[in-house]
């Protein structure tokens, strides 16, 4: 009885601690960031190294970098996950090799990705400090997360569907397109969200690849400052930039929430149209 009470207490304590940290963080950002948040903050360019003015070009750069990263990484990772889960045996040498490499890749610190991106995309491919370089570097960084979550999502679909589809003379690709991918959609969306979260929070890799320039980008070949880089710069290098750093952090969180809910509702809508029940 006392053991049970103790265990229950510990479990409650752990969950209160975890959610407590989250709420502390959130309320800190809200309290400090909300007063400065205004329409002009979202629509204006930064002035005086970011101490005043807004963050419009930075939001645009962030979204462009994110778009480049996801447009590159999502199809690549889906294809790899399908290959791993549906067309190779789980214990095959190839499958094990790819999985092990992905696990190593997932553990590589982001600063290493930044150096790699700088050497490969900026210098070797001659893309310079640009949104394209930054986006492609982020794509490399989120690939392991996207592939592993997509693969796990596919493997979690009931094997009965594969057998039943085969017994009806359906091809493997038909079963994949009509049954397995729709069933795995919630897992795929969740993985995508994790990837976006990691990409949008990335600072170190972007300083080396997409650069610091806080002007509105004209094309993907322009340098652009991401929100996370802006927050880092304001809080570490610019005296008196704290207030705008808080507001930028709040905007970053809002952007994540918006992307999250859009993706969820798109997935729901699409599942409803293909009449899959999950």
């Amino acid at each position, binding site marked *: 009885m006392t053991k049970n009470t103790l265990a229950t207490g510990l479990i409650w304590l752990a969950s209160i601690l975890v959610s407590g940290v989250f709420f502390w963080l959130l309320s800190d950002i809200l309290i400090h960031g909300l007063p400065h948040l205004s329409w002009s903050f979202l629509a204006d360019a930064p002035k005086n190294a970011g101490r005043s003015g807004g963050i419009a070009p930075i939001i645009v750069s962030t979204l462009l970098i994110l778009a480049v990263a996801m447009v590159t990484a999502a199809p690549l990772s889906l294809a790899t996950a399908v290959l791993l889960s549906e067309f190779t045996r789980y214990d095959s040498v190839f499958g094990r090799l790819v999985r092990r490499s992905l696990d190593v890749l997932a553990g590589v610190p982001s600063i290493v990705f930044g150096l790699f991106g700088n050497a490969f995309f900026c210098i070797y491919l001659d893309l310079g400090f640009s949104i394209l370089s930054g986006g492609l570097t982020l794509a490399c960084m989120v690939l392991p997360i996207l592939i592993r979550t997509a693969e796990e999502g596919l493997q979690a679909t009931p094997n009965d*569907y594969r057998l*039943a589809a085969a017994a009806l003379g359906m091809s493997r690709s*038909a079963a994949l397109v009509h049954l397995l991918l729709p069933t795995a959609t919630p897992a795929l969306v969740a993985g995508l969200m994790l990837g976006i979260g990691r990409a949008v929070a990335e600072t170190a890799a972007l300083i080396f690849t997409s650069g610091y320039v806080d002007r509105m980008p004209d094309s993907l070949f322009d340098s652009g400052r991401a929100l996370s880089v802006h927050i880092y710069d304001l809080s570490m290098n610019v005296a008196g930039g704290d207030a705008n750093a808080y507001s930028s952090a709040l905007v970053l969180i809002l952007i994540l929430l918006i992307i999250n809910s859009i993706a969820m509702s798109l997935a729901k809508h699409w599942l409803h149209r293909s009449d899959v*029940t999950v």
Partner: protein
Amino acid sequence: MNLIINPKNEPIDKTHKDEAYTLGPLQAGPPCCDPEPLIRVDKLSLHYGKKPALENVSLDIYKGCITALIGPSGCGKTSFLSVLNRMTDMIPNCRVSGNVHFDSRDLRHPALDVQGLRRDIGMIFQKPVPFPLSIRRNIELPLREHGMSKQADLNEVMQQVLQDVGLWDEVKDRLESSALALSGGQQQRLCIARALALKPKVLLMDEPCSALDPISSGVVEDLIQRLRGKYTVVIVTHNLAQARRIANYAGFFWIKDQRAGCLIEFGQCKQIFEAPAHELTAAYVNGSRG
């Protein structure tokens, strides 16, 4: 018995719209007095890795008849079924040897059109596997995969097969709702309808009633009876009374020397149950062994 349990089955027998789909009345079909083998199995053995699962099985499956395979769990009945529609291809390390012929097709030929074969030899699993789609799409998806695309044709086939399995009246108003919302017995009948929609010649059934309650089981059993003549049915069952009620032929499998499954006796159902030639068969069907 079927009239009490499922009076809804009655009107189906009167609909003779399309000979290819509509099942005949109960107990119809050839009495199997002139058996014509459709599948010939000769010296079939099957290994999972190094472990033998079946050894030296030879038997004929007769056209239009119901063949029941009985025996204790793990004696290779399901493995035997999955050889017949090449589902063994999906199991890693599964090795098959011996000769299996369906009509004139060599079922073990490496270049065999497996998808075409599975269209001709359908399979029903122990646990009903409706796809997580609407009832309509469950039937339509495989048909579309096999090249039927006109909505009018699809609708016609769907209505006929759903009538054939006695599900039409129960679901005609909610064809667009999810098949997962159906009861277990309805799901199994939907799976049978889905298989019938492809106009197979043979239906393999792996304990199709064992996951169902007695009433649903009775409905599915009546349905299997009505497949006789039109389709060749091979059914694995642990329900000896059921095998006795529905089968024309019966095969008794047993695990020999704690090693591999083998066929002890095969013959007309009546003979297997009433005058078994082998003492193991006699002990099993009388309930003193197994």
